[in-house]
């Protein structure tokens, strides 16, 4: 049983991870737009500038390309920078630094050095922020050898995964679902770093495996409650790390349930779910009693109007319907 358990907002847990990492290691510095006195657009870094000063919490100009490139240069010169990109959509401006530079450093230079930097960035819709402030682009980064991609779904995981990401010698894209920031979750003061690449069984069940990550887990959990009324018992796997993803935990669950649904908020086509489905169809083929189902956003940009966005996004109802298709 955990001691000192309390309720902590997702965004605050990230702030605590940053603070604890900075206390532990002087080389951890934060770079980002409006992260210092302003505390960040979602308040995640609130108080850190006052605590650690301008030498360690640096307000960056609106120059995303230079932001990640500068983080890399500092990483190659002994620091452990954590860069914040205000919305994941803005990563497009920093793609060279992420894809061509940071991801390649260790491999391309023959293992001489590595790029120990973290890029924190919020993804996801639900705020009617429109097509350029709502995208889930994590699959892009999971496709690039050399990057690690993390996406937590609750406060303890956010804390533990971020602590691990900061100490990891590789470049990590740390994706935060922006609808989670204000949500409260149980939080243990003694929360330890969580190994990157390990999934979590969020709900134990026997009839169907729902693999998901990040904010989408709430749709899976709501669907599981609904499906339980129909005596369908869902097992929910929270991936936590998208690259490298925990194939063994997914396969173990599939071996038990023989049915697989993959859920994410990102566009379904060419998404994380496509990779998991392909892999399980390969190594888990004999375990499957039904077709693998994927649930993701349709192949359109994220729309603005609440009337459109509510239809665009996945939902518990869509999960329930998909599960019923393959279970009943």
């Amino acid at each position, binding site marked *: 049983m955990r001691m000192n358990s309390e309720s902590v907002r997702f965004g605050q847990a990230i702030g605590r991870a940053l603070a604890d990492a900075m206390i532990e290691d002087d080389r951890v*510095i934060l770079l980002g737009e409006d992260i210092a006195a302003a505390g960040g657009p979602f308040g995640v870094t609130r108080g850190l500038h006052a605590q650690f000063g301008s*030498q360690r919490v*640096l307000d*960056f*100009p609106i*120059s995303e*390309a*230079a932001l*990640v*490139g*500068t*983080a*890399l*240069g*500092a*990483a*190659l*010169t*002994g*620091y452990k*920078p954590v860069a914040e990109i205000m919305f994941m959509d803005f990563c497009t401006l920093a793609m*060279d*630094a992420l894809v*061509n*530079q940071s991801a*390649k*450093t*260790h*491999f*391309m*230079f*023959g*293992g*001489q*050095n*590595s790029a*120990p930097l973290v890029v924190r960035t919020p993804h996801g819709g639900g705020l009617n922020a429109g097509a350029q402030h709502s995208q889930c682009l994590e699959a892009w980064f999971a496709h690039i*050898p*050399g990057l*690690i991609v993390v996406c937590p779904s609750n406060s303890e995981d956010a804390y533990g995964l971020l602590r691990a990401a900061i100490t*990891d*010698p*590789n470049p990590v894209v740390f994706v935060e679902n922006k609808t989670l920031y204000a949500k409260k979750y149980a939080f243990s003061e003694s929360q330890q770093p969580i190994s990157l690449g390990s999934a979590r069984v969020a709900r134990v069940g026997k009839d169907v495996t729902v693999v998901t990550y990040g904010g989408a887990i709430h749709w899976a959990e709501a669907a599981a409650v609904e499906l339980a009324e129909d005596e369908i018992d869902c097992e929910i796997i929270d991936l936590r790390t998208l690259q490298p993803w925990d194939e063994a935990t997914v396969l173990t669950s599939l071996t038990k349930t023989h049915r697989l649904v993959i859920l994410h908020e990102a566009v379904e086509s060419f998404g994380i779910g496509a990779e998991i489905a392909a892999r399980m169809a390969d190594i888990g083929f004999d375990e499957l009693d039904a077709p693998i189902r994927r649930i993701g956003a349709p192949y359109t940009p994220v729309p603005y109007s609440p009337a459109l966005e509510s239809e665009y996004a996945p939902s518990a109802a869509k999960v329930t319907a998909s599960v019923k298709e393959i279970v009943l």
Partner: protein
Amino acid sequence: MSDETPTSVPPEPLTFSESELFIDCYRLMKRIRMVEERLSALFADGAIPGFIHLSIGQESVPVGVSRHLTNSDTIAITHRGHGQALAKGMDLTPFFAEMMGKQDGICKGRGGSMHIADSSIGMLGANGIVGGGLSIATGSALAHKLDGANHIAVAYFGDGALAEGIFHECLNLSALWSLPCLFVCENNGWGEFSKTDQQFRGNLKKLAKAFGVSYQFVDGIDVGAVTDASESIILAMRKKPHPYVLECKVERFHGHFEGDPQKYREESDLATLEERDPIIYLREKLIRAGIAPAILEDIESRLAQEIEQAVASALAGPNPEFTTAKSEVYAHE
């Protein structure tokens, strides 16, 4: 693009220390030149795969700048960066082995000419992306400033990078945060296959000034001018961190890449390149100052020996194993 036009000063007699300095510069420039001529031949023979971009004609810049750097100072270099790497102190054998894609290459054969790096001497990496090293050097300069040490970072770039947005971002940031980043522009007048004036309407001097960044122009035909300028610039940067733009006018003797037939270049341009050769210029200066040609010839024969040994050793080395490469996509600590 710059207000200044290149001028050459008539050679003058040298003091003893100047002789020492210029003979050393001659050795280092000639070393780069001979290495690249050897690379050119190896490439023509098929011993070097991929693309290589030679800096023949531009050797004065890295030699003049690197004289004032230590291994704690960092540099980010370009795709035309062999001279920048060698002037910083890279060993020849792992350099040649890397060009050949061998296991004993400094990057185990995974980088090649465009992606060579040597962290042991503060060389953060060459870059296949034009302007790709600028923000890396800027970040390294941030680290130096946060360290409170007096180290500096050097961002080498070509005039072809002037139209890249990242240059403007980095100049702004360096000025904003007073970062000890020396932006060294090797202006050879060409951005790949097109003349700079067809690509860049700005003016580097005025651009630096717009950000409040100090700027100096030197004619790269004279390594003495490069080393003199670098010395005072770097000394001042060490005393008080700030960015600086040093523009060096040089000529690109070879094509954009080795094997480039340069059909876009006028014959008169190519025919007069020797007049702008910094090595010929320095050699004449040394001879006129009374340095015996035999001294320079001795340097050249020693260099030839060093290079041939390195080439032979690199050629004899094994090819890398894919399984080893594959296991190093991620660092494990």
